[in-house]
């Protein structure tokens, strides 16, 4: 019974996140940038822009220039997130790859840095007057949601332990449209419920920053306006 409910929820959530993100990304990709607005100094070649992007996504370069505390907490949180997700890959694929095995060890501890970063961000949200001013309830709830996921996950990993093999079987089953048995461990159910929530709100929330960053004209444009003419389709109409 539990298995069926969670299976349905997982299918719905997966559909929402996949279709939702795809639709948003399609809108971003199709909306033209009428003018050249890279924040300069900007790279003058495509490769240069690629590296600028890599630095932004992997190192949070601009954030580092901006505020060392936010950078520290934010960067820790995100890098831990990638490690955790890599570690989670073992639930979704049959055979493990060497890189998934490789992150198992560090990944274990990533849950601490994940929670540490989130805690720091949450404290700042209340402690720093300026950030408190700009925060909406959703900003706080988002952090609490991630903390909830991280905390329930860590609980399973380090305290209560759950039947990982069954979880894996259940998740693999879902990918073959087969609803199997899900262990009725409450911590696991909380973990999964929160993850489902995260997936559902992803395309309608600020979490769209993840794909959004790649579409930001001030970061992804090449500084070559004197060499190559840039013209949006709707602007070309004006010339007729």
């Amino acid at each position, binding site marked *: 019974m539990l298995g069926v409910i969670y299976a349905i929820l997982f299918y719905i959530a997966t559909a929402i996140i996949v279709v939702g993100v795809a639709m948003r990304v399609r809108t971003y990709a199709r909306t*033209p940038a009428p003018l050249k607005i890279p924040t300069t100094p900007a790279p003058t070649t495509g490769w240069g822009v690629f590296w600028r992007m890599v630095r932004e996504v992997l190192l949070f370069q601009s954030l580092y220039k901006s505020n060392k505390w936010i950078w520290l907490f934010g960067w820790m949180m995100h890098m831990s997130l990638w490690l955790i997700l890599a570690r989670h890959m073992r639930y979704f694929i049959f055979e493990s790859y060497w890189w998934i095995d490789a992150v198992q060890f560090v990944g274990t501890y990533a849950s601490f840095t994940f929670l540490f970063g989130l805690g720091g961000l949450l404290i700042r949200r209340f402690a720093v007057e300026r950030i408190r001013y700009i925060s909406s309830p959703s900003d706080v709830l988002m952090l609490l949601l991630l903390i909830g996921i991280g905390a329930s996950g860590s609980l399973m990993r380090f305290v209560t332990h759950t039947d990982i093999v069954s979880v894996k079987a259940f998740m693999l089953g879902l990918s073959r449209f087969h609803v199997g048995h899900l262990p009725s461990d409450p911590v696991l159910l909380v973990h999964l419920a929160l993850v489902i929530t995260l997936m559902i*709100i992803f395309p309608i929330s600020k979490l769209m920053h993840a794909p959004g*960053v790649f579409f930001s004209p001030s970061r992804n444009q090449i500084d070559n306006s004197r060499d190559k003419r840039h013209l949006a389709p709707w*602007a070309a109409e004006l010339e007729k």
Partner: protein
Amino acid sequence: MPDGAEEFRKMQHALDVPCLKPGAMEGVQPFKAKPEHQEKVGMPGELIPDWKEKALEKMAELGEKNRAFKVYLDTCVKCGACTDKCHYFLGTGDPKNMPVARQDLLRSVYRRYFTFAGKYFPWLVGARDLTEDVLEEWYSYYHQCSECRRCSVFCPYGIDTAEITMAAREILDTVGVGQKYSNEIIGKVKEVGNNLGLNPKALRATLEDLEEDLEEDTGLAVRLPLDEKGADILLITPSADFFAEPHIDGLLGYAKVFHEAGVSWTISSYASEAANFGLFIGSYENMREISLRIRKAAEDLGVKRIVFGECGHAWRVAYSFLDTLAGPFDFLDQKYPIPQHILEFTWDEIQKGTLKFDKSKNDDIRLTYHDSCNVARASRMGDMPGGQFEIPRNVIKAVCNNYFDMDPDTIKESTLCCGGGGGLLTDDLMDLRIKGSSPRMTALQDVTEEHGVTHMAAICAICKTQFSKVMPKFGYEMDSVVSVHQLVSNAIILTGSNDGESAEEETSDE
């Protein structure tokens, strides 16, 4: 000693973050445009009856036409990194002058009408209805942003509040609420050719007077040609260069450089304005119309090159947008950058060795340099990224012995706006302008204490006017702001000039 007014107290440090003072700048607004100003920019004369529908329609349209608008509204995570980066926030403490809070004034409405979360859970995501009060609030705080892009440098996604400000101003214009200063000026450019409304006759007379002065000073026929067909170079310069101080000394500097370089050049009376206020109000159509005047002037005069004078926002529109708005410029000589900045021209000539200087002519000055915001963060000079920082400094160092940079966190890409950019250079915003300039002024006061700096050079017509107005409030003479080409003009040695000292210099040089 300050020319009047009380001296402003210096902040402890240029980037000191104030405590929040909610409402400190509430209701501060520039004068609204009259129907006749609105008409000239193609906007309704007063608030239209169905303003709400039209405003939302415009917002939807911008979301479809401008990727930046859409992506920036969606991606902000409220991390707060930008909150202490705006000079208007630093100077006023009003939380709505924090870049993200400024964006939120519009984002809250966008969310309410265009996002799932805002439609069904407005309280959760800070969404709100569009009301007349909101419109007034927009008018107020979107005219407390100088579109300087400092916030964009520090945002992890490069979110540029200037883009939101421009969009908001365009929405306001569309429903009939425009700003008098910007819209009146755009009207003048379209009618007369420049922001000042200086007609061709008056312009000719001004230039002739200046030529006489130049001849008296140098003994040479250094020319300031107007509407001369067949000249090689068309100079497009801010009209303030024709009459305001210290701008005018910069213009004389360009003339001397062109003279010494031996090129033929001309100013156009039809396109006698570099500044393009269409940028400030976020109107592509107006910006395009003004830019097309430059294209037409270049075609009519049959020039081979276009060079821009010292002006910040103008250089942004020229460097980044001119080809988009008025290109392709295939009728110009492709060997040269299109368009070229006067500093690129001068620096090229210096490197070629065409220009000779007597640096001691600037020895009475201990100088620092203010990177103008739109040159620094929205354009480039030369071939390398960052040329917009190096080339002006290279030229300055070639003509001036005593040069000192300000605090590294307040120059180059992190430069602070002068406080008067983006359409705010109007007397009805004087209080805001003074407060907004205080971070820059504090950084200046620091180098004055440390290195005895007396003067600050700038390459933007707005910066120059703004500083000459506000510097007296901070204990400087109003002529402490100088044009870079004014320094060039002071130091340049013109071949064959009757200026006693420089002639001597020249012979001893050879």
